[in-house]
Structure formats: structure tokens, C-alpha cells
């Protein structure tokens, strides 16, 4: 059962690793704005495909 020392040790190291990562993300400001990225991801490609948007609209109408 000495393996308990290893398993607990490993689990705590893993937990602390994730804890440190979490603190880092807070520090870097990842959670400062949780709204804008959710909107931003929706229009990544809009700029290039102006025509496509129109076409897809037409297609929708045909269907």
C-alpha cells in the first residue's frame, strides 16, 4: 500500500499544477471580458465572403 504515497503525491501535484494555471489565466486578464469573444467568434470570416452571404440568402429563398 505504499503506492498511496505516490498516488496522493501525484494527484496533489496535478491539482496544484492546474491551480497555478488558473491563477495565471486570471492574471493575464482572460476573464475580464467574457462577453465580446462570444460575439467575435461568430463573424470571423464575414469580411471576405460578402458575396457568399448574399448567395446563401438567395439559396435559402429558392429552397
Amino acid at each position: 500500500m505504499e503506492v498511496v504515497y505516490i498516488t496522493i503525491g501525484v494527484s496533489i501535484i496535478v491539482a496544484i499544477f492546474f491551480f497555478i494555471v488558473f491563477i495565471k489565466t486570471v492574471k493575464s486578464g482572460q476573464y475580464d471580458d467574457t462577453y465580446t469573444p462570444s460575439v467575435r467568434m461568430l463573424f470571423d470570416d464575414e469580411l471576405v465572403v460578402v458575396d457568399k452571404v448574399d448567395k446563401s440568402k438567395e439559396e435559402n429563398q429558392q429552397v
Partner: protein
Amino acid sequence: MSLNNCYHCGTDCGKNPIIFNEKYFCCNGCKTVYEILNTNELNCYYDLESAPGTIPKDIKGKYNYLENEEIIEKLLEFSDGETSVLELFIPSIHCSSCIWVLENLSKLNSGVTTSMVNFPKKILRITFKNERTNLKELVELITSIGYEPYISLEDADNKDNKVDKTLIYQVSIAAFAFGNIMLLSFPEYFEVDEFWLEKYKHLFRWLMFTMAVPVVFYSAKDYFISAYKGLKHWILNIDVPIALGISVLFFRSSYEILFDLGSGFFDSLSGLVFFLLLGKYFQQKTYSFLSFERDYKSYFPIAVTLIKNDIETNVPVKNIKKGDRLLIRNEELIPVDGILINGNAAIDYSFVTGESVPVSKQSGDKLFAGGKQTSGAIEMEVISSISQSYLTQLWSNDVFNKKTAVTIKNITDSISKYFTIAILSIALVAGIFWYNYNASMAFNVVTAVLIIACPCALALSAPFAFGNMLRIFGYKKFYLKNTETIESISKIDTIIFDKTGTITTNDKTQLLYEGENLSGKELKSLKNILRASNHPLSRSLYEYLQVSPSSTEPSSFNEILGKGIEATINNIDFKIGSASFLQVEVKKLEETAIYIKINNHFKGVFLFKNSYRKGTKEVFNKLSKKYNLVILSGDNEGERENLDKLLPKNTKLYFNQKPEDKLNFIKNIQKSGKQVMMIGDGLNDAGALAQSNVGIAISEDVNVFTPACDAILDAQLFDKLPVFVSLSIKTIKIIKASFVLSLGYNLIGMYFALNGLLTPVVAAILMPLSSITIVVFVTILTNFVSRRI
């Protein structure tokens, strides 16, 4: 979208829309934005949301001051000579199209490397190359597409206010420790004398101890500090029993594991700290796009145009000296008191007084700081420095220099005094009893009493009830500065209102015609004449007349600045303007009016009436049952009669109140023990708002700036004011009810403690159970009472 609405901004285009690219626009501004976006392949802007735009403002020359090195340096977040980073606050950001177009700024200006929007804060962050573009160019570009940034002295001064994240770290450490310690302590709760457990329990216990150390010394440190501060001033605040509980928990647990007496209460300890901090975090809701701390500096421009020897230079506002000559352009604010030298001045003092009808001034007249010029450029001579102007003097009053001391005794602290004394005496009595009865148990019982009495649930009920109410109010567009405001609202007994802009609306100025009826033809001709005039009163009247202008152009047209218009149309002579210009008798002295003469015959007068907000009467009737109501108006007595009719009998009315008078009035009635709520809107109420126990600023548009206050109420919701007040009182009742509940838990715990039965398992069950039920209890109740606002 209906045919007649502007493709860009969605407003009604009226009779004569501008048609471009088969699309309708309400004005040239909107059309220009469309053109800019269209030629740069950014017309996706209109696909994301329909009519997302705002009408761009005329900005010619307005941003010239952004060429001043000193100002540039202040505004830029970062600059290394090659690349610069700029953060702009843009109140008009409101939809996903806004985000999209602003983040594609690089298509419009090649100097921009990246631009990023923070939507909740309405901030645009631009990184740009200095050699390709500059600050002024960028600001003008953004303004030209309808996103005018808000640049103020104050924001430039304290731009490096970093958000304090300590609480987040404290909570996360407590949460981490709580979870892990709970897992490690579980085995001992269920298996007591098991072989393997006996072997490893020391490892488990010391691991728990290691994790509890940062919880006590980092996460919970604020409780110790606050308890110490309280004790120093002989105040037993709620943090005293908390700090006592935490330290007893920690020392007794450490003692137990050191001498191998038991597993200690580390799980309860970390859970307690975690829940307490969670409550604190929940209470800290802030509206990042609002500011409750603005003073006059936020209203005033950063720089003005100074004319010296016919050369225009831009100087920062604070460098203006007496005797300087300033150029104030259209839509610019007057930063200091001065005398009008030349130009057609129509000053809109709505920032200051709430009065939206612009006042005409002639050269030689005194202009007061805070007014906004609304028709063309004017020149003025400065007669006092910025801090000594009529309006800004107010800020030299002590109210504004007072740092918010912890003078407010909140509801939790008022009960904690008795609570602390009670548990200390129980602990003492129990200790004496057990010492005589079974001395070995005395230490156990005394510590158990202190542990179980730790008022976790008690300390949680107020933060969660207030925090939840704050959010509910926020959804309903009543924004509070902090949770203490709810408590202050519940205590008030006197409500003071400002008149203009607070109980009157300031955008829908209503006109009333008195005199002989005008024929349809006369009205049409009148409208035609008014079209050519740029005077703000003419504009209002033009919009008010619901006829289409006649097709024939006036054969003669002469506008005399500051007086009126003379015009001939279809051989009929019109004279429109002030009473003195028309040489007629003044009808009502107090009111702004336009007099009309046709063919030298006096026809009548258009009076500008302030309309009262929807529900004013009901609001006053409801509130008058419980509160003393007072109206403090900066205006003259012109409206007294109307107000007497409209408002309940016991409302006191005071007129001709200067900003300082309002402040002193509140100070005086506070001395007689009154708790005052002030409701105002303009800068002239700023002193009163700061002095009162609760200052509420009313705002037509919450993104436009309100003076420093405790709460901002959307003007549309003025009629809901009594509901918000009564909800605040209900919140206090809910908190009191939850106090009873949590004291019940404490009594149960006390039973275990006094009988020497408090084991770690009991504590581990009782503590989270009481906390969670209290949180659920207050959340459900606050939601329930506010289900219908």
C-alpha cells in the same frame, strides 16, 4: 424594416429621405457612414444587425487638441515611438455590428494593426503604427463612422487604475483547499479504527494542515485586519466573532493533530472561509460601463482652442488663465466662466440644470461653465480660472474631499455586537461549569462553543440578499454603486427632488400655442421660413409643426441674431422672434417663447412647456404617505402653480436654489436627524447628491454622464421609484428573517458544543448546511418579492 426608416440608424426619415444605392437615409451623416463602409467592403455591418448605426456628429476641428504632445502622451496607454496602444471609451457601442466594424478598423486605416472591443466596458483598444497614422486621425475616423469616443480630463489622469484581483485569488485558494481537505478528511469520518487508515492518517492530517495554512493566513487575512480595526475603535463588528472562530478552529485543529487527539476541523475551517469569501465576491457586482465617481472634470473637454494674436492653439483646460480668449465650436462645452465676445451663442445648460431649451446670449453677456454651445462657433473671454467658475466652485466644498469613512453601521454589524457578547459569555459560563464538573473537557467545550458560534450563516445572509437585489435592480436599469446603498435607501425618511430634468423630461419639450388660430397656409409658410434658420428654438418649432412646408421660397429672409426672423413669403410678411423684437407685450416672463406677427398683426405665441415625466403624480402620491417630499429647483417660481396642482399638498417647494443652497439645505435637515435621499440629474445637483445619504442620478441615457452619486436610475423608470424603495425595505426584512434562521442553526450547534459532543463530522455537516440553506433562503425570497417590478 419599413421603407421609410434610415438604413443606417433606423430613425424615421421623414418626408425627404436621402436615397443612395436604393437605400434610404435620414441624413447626410448616415449616408456618409454607409459610403465609407461600403467602399471598404465593410457593408456586412448591416447584415449582422438591421440599422445598427448612430448618426455621426459634426466634428470639424473638434479634435485638433489631439495634436498637442502633452495630451497625446497622457492619453496613450503605451508608446515606444514606433507602435502605440490607445484605449478609448465609446458610449455608443451597443450591438454586435459595432464590435465587428470597430474590430475591422484596419480596413479603414492601414496604420491600425489591431483593434479590440471590450463590450461590457464599451472600450476600444487600438494598436497602431506611429508613422502611418496618429491619434487625431484615428479619433476622427471613429467619430466619422458614428462612434464618438469620450475623452475626458479625469479618465486621462487616472488611466492606470488596475482592477484588484486579490479577492479572486483568495476565493480560489480557499476553494482549492476546501475541496482537497474535504476529500482527505472523508476517510476518517467513516472508518475509525481501520488498519490502513491508522497507518496513513498522519499523512492525511499534515497534508490538510499544509493546505489550511494559506487559507488562514492569506484568504482570511482581511477578517483579522477588519476585526483588529474594529476592536481598536471599540466596535464589535461581525468580523470579530468570525476572526475568533477562524483562529480557534485553526489552533484547536493544529493542537489535535500535533498531539494525535483527532483529525481536527480543517475541512470546516476552509469551507467557512470559502463561503464567506464567496459572499464577499457576490456582493462586489460592479457595472463596469458606468461610473459613479465623476466630477465636473469628466464633463469638460481636455483642451480648448485659444486665440492669441489671431493664431489658434490648443491648450489643456487647466492652463486657461483669466483674460484668455477662447474659441468654442459648435457642440463644445464652455469650460470656464467668461464673457461672450462675438458669435451667435445659444447655450444648452442641460448638463448643469437639466433645462434643455438653449438660452440665447448676446455679446457682452456672461457665459457660465458647463454650458454647451449649439449654434456655430463663438469667441469668449475668460473671467475666472477653471476651479473658480460659478459651477466648479462647488467642488471645493468639503463634501467632495471627504474620503468615505466607515461610518455607516450596517445591519450585520448592529446585531453582531450582541451576538459577540452572547457567545463570549456562553463560552465563559460553559467553561466554568465544565471546569468544575469535568476539567479535562473544559478546553474542548469552550473551543467548540467558539467554533460553532462562528457566524458564518449570519455573515452570509446580508451579502447574498443585497447582492441578489443589486443584480435584480440592475436588470431593471436601476444601477447601484454598491450594496450598502440598498440599506441606506431603506432607512430614508425624506426625499428631495430636483425639478428640471428630474421630474420634467428634458428631451420632449412641448410647445403650447396661445393666440389667434393660424391657418393651414400660414403654418406651411411658417415652417418654410423656419427651415432656413439654425436657431435652436426655430429648430424645435420646425419639428413641432406637423405640416409640410409650402413650396414657394420666401422672397425675402433676414435673420437677426439673438432676436428673430423677418421674412416675406407669397407677399405675406412674417415676423418671428422675441417679444422685444416684435414690440409686443410679454406674455409670461418666466417662459421661453416664440412670438409670431403676420402682416404686422400680432397673432400669438408658442410657449415652451416642460412636460412632467410619466407617472410623476402617482410617484409623489405614493411616496407622500411615508416620506417628507421636497422639491429644490434652481428655476424661478414660474411653475409653482402647476406643481401645486400636480403634487400632494404636503410637498414643500423651494425655488431659486443655487447649487450651494441645495447642498446646505440637505446638510441642515440632516442635522435635525433626517435621512435624506436626493434625486437629481444635472451638475448643479452634484453637491446635494454627494451630501445626501443616498444620491440618485436620473439619466435619459445611462451611458451619458451623470454626476457622482450612489445610484443611477434610467429616466424611463422614474415611475418605478416607489417600487425600488419598498423593495429595499423588503430586502432588509428578508435579511432579518434569515438572521433568525441562522441563529436557529447556532442554537442547534450550541447543543452539541455544550454537551461536549461536537465532533469534526458534526461541524462538517452543520456548517455547510447552514450556509447553503441561508443562501438559498435569501435568494429565493429576494427573487420572490421582486418578481413583479
